[in-house]
């Protein structure tokens, strides 16, 4: 009896402890990511090379290859974790994740179209820009389909519709692709990778992501109120329409930018909020910062793993996250079917 009562008690780590712990983890993995790569560079040497003004090979590798890769993994992971936490909170559905809004698949389609039409061969920057355009087009279509007062169910249905449509169009571009190299590049883009990214990608994605983070982080208390349902939240002074707009705009900004520079990376936005929810007492507002840090940590770890597991083969990051994420998803389904809390 006392055991049962114990298990129903909500426990959570003090906010500062969890955030500090996750931040330290992100810091360690960031350094770990900097130290991982085919070129065997010593610990001191590699860190010193980050700050040197020399243009030798080690400095180039550290500053032009590994640093942007680690920064992008951190930013993209944080974007996926944060938007996953916001969308689960807004939709009050633990199965929600950024790709559900059609943002990732539409951004992928934009990137694929850039490759397919050959625009990206002429102007490399066109690829991320068209991916961003795809993300925003998705938001507009989803908003129009869901309607102003549509509520969360309409939003989910609209997101699913846009996701399947853009997925089909991506497949179409793939099968109509005129040359095999473009097809290979398209596939690479659909799978998600952080290999061979530069600081240009960092600077391109950062403004959108930071703006998206600021929008999403401001939703904490509104998400708490939505725990009680949309009607009750509205009578607590929360404008649910505004929350919906901010949630999808913020997701489009940061996940659109993430997909624009790294392709579609799934499951991080689904898994991370889940893993951390018990540690924050299930409170949606406390989950936001924790999920952003947790997402960054998970993606940094995954990106280190793809380089350690198959250094020669260029294992795709999105493949690895899906390999971890899909079984987790199944476990979630089985657990909810068993009716466990």
């Amino acid at each position, binding site marked *: 009896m006392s055991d049962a009562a114990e298990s*129903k*008690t*909500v426990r*959570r780590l003090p906010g500062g402890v969890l955030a500090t712990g996750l931040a330290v983890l992100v810091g360690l993995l960031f350094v770990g990511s900097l130290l991982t790569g085919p070129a065997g560079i010593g610990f001191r040497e590699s860190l010193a090379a980050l700050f040197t003004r020399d243009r030798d090979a080690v400095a180039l590798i550290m500053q032009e290859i590994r640093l942007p890769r680690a920064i992008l993994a951190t930013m993209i992971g944080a974007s996926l974790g944060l938007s996953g936490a916001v969308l689960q909170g807004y939709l*009050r559905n633990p199965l929600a994740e950024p790709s559900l809004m059609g943002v990732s698949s539409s951004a992928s389609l934009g990137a694929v179209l850039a490759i397919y039409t050959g625009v990206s061969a002429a102007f490399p920057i066109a690829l991320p820009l068209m991916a961003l355009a795809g993300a925003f087009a998705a938001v507009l279509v989803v908003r129009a389909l869901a309607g102003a007062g549509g509520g969360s169910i309409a939003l989910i249905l609209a997101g699913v519709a846009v996701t399947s449509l853009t997925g089909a169009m991506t497949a179409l571009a793939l099968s109509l692709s005129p040359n095999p190299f473009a097809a290979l590049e398209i596939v690479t883009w659909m799978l998600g990778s952080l290999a061979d990214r530069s600081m240009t990608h960092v600077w391109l994605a950062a403004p959108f992501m930071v703006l998206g983070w600021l929008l999403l982080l401001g939703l904490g*208390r509104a998400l*708490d*109120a*939505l*725990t*009680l*349902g949309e*009607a*009750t939240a*509205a*009578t*607590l*002074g*929360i*404008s649910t329409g505004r929350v919906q707009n901010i949630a999808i705009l913020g997701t489009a900004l940061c996940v659109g930018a993430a997909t624009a520079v790294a392709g579609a990376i799934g499951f991080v936005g689904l898994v991370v909020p889940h893993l951390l*929810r018990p540690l924050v*007492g*299930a*409170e*949606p507002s406390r989950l936001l910062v924790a999920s952003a840090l947790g997402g960054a940590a998970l993606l940094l770890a995954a990106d280190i793993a793809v380089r350690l597991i198959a250094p020669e083969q260029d294992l795709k990051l999105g493949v690895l996250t899906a390999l971890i994420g899909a079984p987790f998803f199944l476990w979630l389904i089985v657990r909810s079917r068993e009716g466990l*809390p």
Partner: protein
Amino acid sequence: MTDDPARLTVQNLAVDLGGRRIVDRVSFDCRPGEIVGLVGPNGAGKSTLLRAIAGLVPSGGSFLIDGEDARALSPRQRARRLAYIAQEREIAWGVAVLRLVAIGREPHRGPFAGLTREDESHIAAAMALADVAHLAHRSALSLSGGERARVLIARALAQASPLIVADEPTAGLDPAHQIGLMETFAARCASGDSVLASLHDLTLAARHCTRILVLSEGRIVADGSPTEVFTAGLMRDVYGVEALIEEMPGGLIVVPAGRAVTPAGPDRS
């Protein structure tokens, strides 16, 4: 405040949903300290009327809260005057009961402010009044139906709004919990607050409400004290049932005994 401070004044309130008039030019007022029971058959428009007053569905006509046009209030201002208890007892996540009740303080908090001492004392008082203080650290998803209902009442009490609008707050509760809940409302109204609640249990309404509104086909067909409103004729006309109505210590007992011989119910003519 004015000399005649009606807490809520509703005039010609009308709601159309899907091209159908659900609430038809309803007018009434509600004074401080009153517990107004809204009764009527299924589909009479009770929930829609309450949702309109809570600002959840668009409506015609006018209604004033404490003498001010409710539609002119911002959502936050309105939330400080009116707390709404939804019929669906929705709780999405297993947050601690204490944190759930604290959500009721939302309209009183600044943009990035934590809970103040005043917030804490409102939360503690609300939890004590709703008898959920002992559940403070329990997961909101581990509660029984009665506990869940009381926790959500505590959430609304913590909002400290002078008008509480509750949609079937006693549905699905056992008799002791039903009476306990009405007593919680009564305690709150003793300090000058007002409650407007839709109820299906007529005896509960008769014994615990200071006033009864009867809604039928979107219109108010009776408005008065329980003894004025609950008559055999009204029960026949509005509900289509024969009822036993007895004066007992503590108020009326209203028991539907069987269908009326000449069906005059509102459904399907």
